């Protein structure tokens, strides 16, 4: 029974991890059809921001929940103004340019922080589940992700900004005919996506040591979660996070963590082949 609880929590944690790390990418891809290959580096920047703040004596929760999203959001704004906005409608070129950006950011962070791992201690202590010692921080990540998904859903569903954003996603021409500038909407969307990535990086920073190349660890999973999920931001990301998180953890427990990860990636290829528009392109169509 305890073991089932452990497995269940680990599955929940993996789902939360996938949803959290892909939220920023999902917003940008879903709203703008832009695949941001520098997403992993945005997450990494959020982590470095949190660690830098913590080392300077700022409260760690404030650092990860406020400072990291703001800083990375600003980076996203600069990137959108200087690179992305010239490439709208050229998906492949956007992918190439953001890959360049990813390498550039890795190089810059290496230059500033050096190529050594840095870390912060987790601010939540562990707890006992039957015979098993569990990391309390995983629970914190699950809670943060639930809150984040609810907020995203509520914003998209009930606020005016969310309405405009969904409109811009379904029919940019109509939205622009109604007097909203799609370019401005895209700018805000990209900034918001970057901020979400920064938040993910901040929240995940205490988990592992952070390297300039850490972004590569997130990008693959975030990528397949978002693409397999399809264009609908919340329902798409959630449904594919649930599928991949469950498969990954079950196979990991049955065989080996590496096999679990491989199973997830292989499943992603098969799902993409079967549903090139993603899960939500096929089953849900309401746009949130």
């Amino acid at each position, binding site marked *: 029974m305890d073991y089932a609880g452990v497995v269940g929590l680990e599955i929940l944690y993996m789902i939360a991890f996938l949803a959290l790390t892909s939220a920023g990418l999902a917003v940008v891809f879903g709203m703008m059809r832009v*695949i941001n290959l520098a997403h992993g580096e945005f997450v990494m920047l959020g982590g470095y921001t949190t660690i830098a703040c913590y080392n300077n004596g700022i409260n760690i929760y404030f650092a990860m929940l406020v400072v990291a999203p703001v800083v990375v959001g600003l980076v996203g704004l600069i990137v959108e103004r200087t*690179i992305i906005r*010239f*490439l709208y409608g050229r*998906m*492949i*070129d956007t*992918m*190439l*340019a953001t*890959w*360049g*950006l*990813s*390498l*550039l*950011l*890795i*190089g*810059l962070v*290496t*230059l500033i922080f050096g190529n050594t791992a840095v870390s912060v201690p987790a601010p939540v202590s562990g707890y006992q589940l039957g015979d098993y010692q569990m990391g309390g921080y995983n629970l914190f990540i699950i809670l943060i992700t639930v809150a984040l998904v609810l907020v995203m859903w509520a914003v998209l569903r009930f606020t005016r900004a969310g309405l405009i954003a969904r409109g811009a996603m379904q029919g940019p021409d109509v939205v622009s005919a109604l007097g909203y500038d799609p370019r401005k909407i895209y700018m805000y969307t990209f900034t918001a996506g970057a901020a979400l990535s920064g938040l993910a990086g901040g929240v995940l920073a205490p988990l592992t040591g952070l390297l300039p190349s850490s972004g*590569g660890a997130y990008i*693959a999973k975030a*990528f*397949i979660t978002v*693409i397999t999920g399809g264009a609908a931001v919340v329902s798409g990301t959630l449904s594919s996070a649930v599928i991949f998180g469950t498969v990954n953890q079950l196979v990991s427990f049955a065989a080996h963590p*590496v096999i679990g*990860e*491989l199973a997830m*990636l*292989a499943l*992603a*290829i098969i799902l*993409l*082949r079967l549903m*090139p528009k993603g899960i939500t392109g096929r089953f849900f169509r309401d746009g949130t």
Partner: protein
Amino acid sequence: MRGWPSIGRIRWGWFLLATAILLLLPLVTDTLTPTVLLIWALFALSLGMMWGYAGLLSFGHAAYFGLGAYTYAIAVVNIGESTIPLLLAMLVPAAIAAVVGAMMFYGRISDVYMGVITLVVTLILFKFISATAGDAYVIGRARLGGFNGIPGFHTLNVPGYPEISLFGVPTYYVCAAALLICYLICRWILARSFGRMLVGIRENEARCELMGYNVPALKTAIFTVCAAMAGLAGCLFANWAEIVTPRVFSLGQAAEVLIWVIVGGLGTLIGPILGAIALGYVKLLLGEQTLIDNSLILGALLIIVVLGIPRGVVPALQRVWSAGRRRARRRAGDAGVRRTLGTSVRERP
């Protein structure tokens, strides 16, 4: 997609000049660096052929490079003689590319999703090979060795004579020959209807399909051929480095080759070759110092090229060159007309 360079044809003069330079290079310099630059050039050529002519961008071309390297290492450890491993190093990547390609192209997956799938394939291989440390992962007599890779295998030898192995200058000549032969194969493909159909697919896939061509089969075919070339490059790289590590499958390797190709030039064969040689050399120079990170330069370069010269340097230079020639010819033409008419011609059409 406007402004592709024309298919072009082989210029034998330039080709012979390049051959002569490659032949004589060992007389003036050490061959260690030129060898790896030629290998990288071959790798870039294999991606440039696919991307520049058929319009198929694989974000994970490193997968086939790495498969070639690993296939060679594993086979040569088991066999001991290098002829069959060399062939396997082309056949295995080609076979896997045929399966992956058929899956993608018969599924009519768009170019963006093709990018994602090829990248994920590379990541799967990287993850898997990195995790193969320990006694459980042994193929025949070859230990896969996880992150440390496979060191100390037999390098290429004269076919049939395992005791005469090649290193130094002979290896350099093998790499040069491989590059020249693959270049000729690419030119030969492009001169035939197969090549024209590939360019047709790049320009307008739906029209090619409606004219009755089997587009998925053609795409799978060129994907397979280019994977075999990448595999050959990987095999030669394994010989040059005398060790294979999971780094050949890494995201960095995948990004590097893409940058060489796009900076050198899309839609040309010489562009990717020159791009790989130039940027590969820069990489080796940057490797000697620690002040500026190589990925910083490569990343900035990729952004600048995508924003500024999305077809790459060589096509841009070609455009400037041919515009200059046109102007010169027109001026010469004007002078000729002036001579015959005895008046000045001011108006131009």
